[in-house]
């Protein structure tokens, strides 16, 4: 399969994520958009890895091809941890302010 399709898909997903982050004010939605961007990059990483492994298959061992894929798992694990922390913050915010509007969260400004 042509690599271009993967690139376009992840680019689309990433752009959706960016736009979502920029235009939405709901913290949970922003958060989801960030996840979307992260996963777009992950997707690209997997695709590149596969392509790279295919092109160097002759001289590479099987484990070599899987190296990059493992990175993606790392990223997903770290992202999961990050999500849990982030969601916890949002929950705490909601408890304190009864709002998840990010424009409301500029208390650190002054």
């Amino acid at each position, binding site marked *: 399969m042509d690599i271009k399709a993967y690139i376009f898909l992840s680019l689309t997903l990433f752009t959706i994520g960016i736009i979502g982050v920029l235009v939405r004010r709901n913290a949970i939605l922003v958060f989801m958009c960030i996840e979307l961007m992260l996963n777009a990059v992950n997707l690209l990483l997997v695709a590149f890895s596969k392509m790279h492994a295919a092109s160097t298959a002759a001289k590479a061992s099987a484990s070599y091809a899987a190296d990059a894929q493992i990175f993606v798992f790392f990223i997903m694990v770290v992202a999961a941890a990050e999500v849990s922390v982030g969601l916890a913050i949002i929950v705490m915010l909601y408890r304190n302010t009864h709002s998840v509007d990010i*424009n409301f969260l500029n208390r650190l400004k002054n």
Partner: protein
Amino acid sequence: MSNIAKLVWLIPVLPLIGFLVNGLFRKNLSKGLSGFIGSSVVLASFVLSVLVFMQVKNGEVLNIHYFDFIRLSVLNIGFEFKLDALSALFLLIITGVGFLIHVYSTAYMHDEPGKDFARYFSFLNLFVFSMLLLVMGGNFVILFIGWEGVGLCSYLLIGYWFKREDYTDAANKAFIMNRIGDLGFLLAVFWLIAKVGSVNFDEVFSAASLAKLSATDITGITLLLFVGATGKSAQIPLYTWLPDAMAGPTPVSALIHAATMVTAGIYMIARSNALFSLAEFTQTVITIVGLATALLAASIAIKQNDIKKVLAYSTVSQLGFMFIALGTGNYVAAVFHVLTHAFFKALMFLGSGSVIHAMGGEQDIRNMGGLHKHMKITSITFLIGCLAISGIPGFSGFFSKDEILAGAYGHGPLLYAVVLFAALLTAFYMFRLYFITFTGKFRGTHEQEHHLHESPAAMTIPLVILAVLSVIGGLVGVPEALGGNHMLARFLSPVVPSAGHHIEHSTEYLLMGLSSVLVIASILFAWSRFKNYTGEGDAGGFGKLLQNKWYVDELYQATIVNPLRSISGFFDRIIEKKGIDGFVNGIGKAVSYGSRQMRLVQNGQVGVYVLLMVIGMLVLFIIQLFV
């Protein structure tokens, strides 16, 4: 090395020891003791000077090198003395007149408290030390050490009564004006170093090094040396400090500001005659400046009412005469006049000191009059001084002034006429001073009149000695025309060439006769005007101009002092504070202003941050793709 050469170092060191003893133990010494120490060290130097004089009078020269002062590969300045006829003569004047003035001071300064008395003598000794260094120095640098040293002592002694602000002002003025001259002197020395690579007199004046100097060099060097001399010897344009210097105690005026220090310029030029004789332009400048100074100072002296100011301007004027002699290449006459002037001017200053002492500090001659009755010795000796300075035949001033006049005549009758006119002014203002002070009726208060008395012996004896010298001092230089053989010229001949111009004896008689008659006429004129002086109103017109010293001080104030202050103020307020500091602080302010503006971007809106981040990424993308 002869025996005397081994002792030469003592000549300056003895006064230095006197200075140190008086200076360090001023609290412990009694007045008598500090006066004794101060005077005896100078007397000892005088004795040694006489021995040196005996040694060098046959043309022997003592060159003594003590140690290397500054030795580089390109320059070697030794701490060295050179004693020849010229310096020996000056040694005698300095230590001889100096000793008399020290003795005189023990009485004159007797009312001072003990430690100030010792301070006075220590300064006076330091002065003698510096002046001796000046004339004994074997190179320009040692000469300069003494040169600045005498300036310093003059400063210290003018400001001796340091509580009076106007006195310390005068002291500052003297020092600063001297420094202006010193700069000229230094530049001349640098010029010599650059071209000749030496400052030693023998080396600089040797034919080999003179050959290395171009005409421009010689003119430049001599002019700069002359600038130095105008500062020290109070010539136009740097003469205004000398009249103000009268703020110092009167013996100081006699020693420093009449007999010795102010003649340093004459000494220096006479010493460098090898250079000056080659610089015609400089000689012309010296003649003109000397002439202008002689006339200007004499004209001012006519209208002064402070007894010391008259003498001060008279000194400036007489120094002008000496410079005329130097400018006309008549070095012997200049040195001769230094000698006779030292006698009669020191005499008159000490006489004026005696008057001031008797008048209880009063210096204004309008409040004096008829003092002859009360203080005969002072009056008669002062009269002798006046006769000598006026150039009455037989007195010392006659011979030296006549020689200057003869030299001037050799350069043209016009020059002669103007110099003669200045000499007539001299006679006029000196006798004006004498008549107003010593004849007529007493015009002071009763209290002062009651207090009038002749001064003690310590003051009158130096007066008498100086008076005798003022009479006979001229005999060392009786010209051939009068049957003499001019011992002085022969004595100085190894160092200083005689004047080039020789005029006919008959012309010389004529000139002498003319000047004598005119001088006597001028004295008689002064007598007719001032014998019954009762005071006069404020002068108007030209008289007022003279009374105010041609407004030269005011001119300097307006053209130099005030602009300097305002420029400095401008530098301080505008360039320093607003300009440079403003710029530096401006950088700081710009940084903090910029930071304050940049801070506004951090408005706490997460959306804005994200937007900026995205824009940043896009920019990077674009740069990556298209640049």
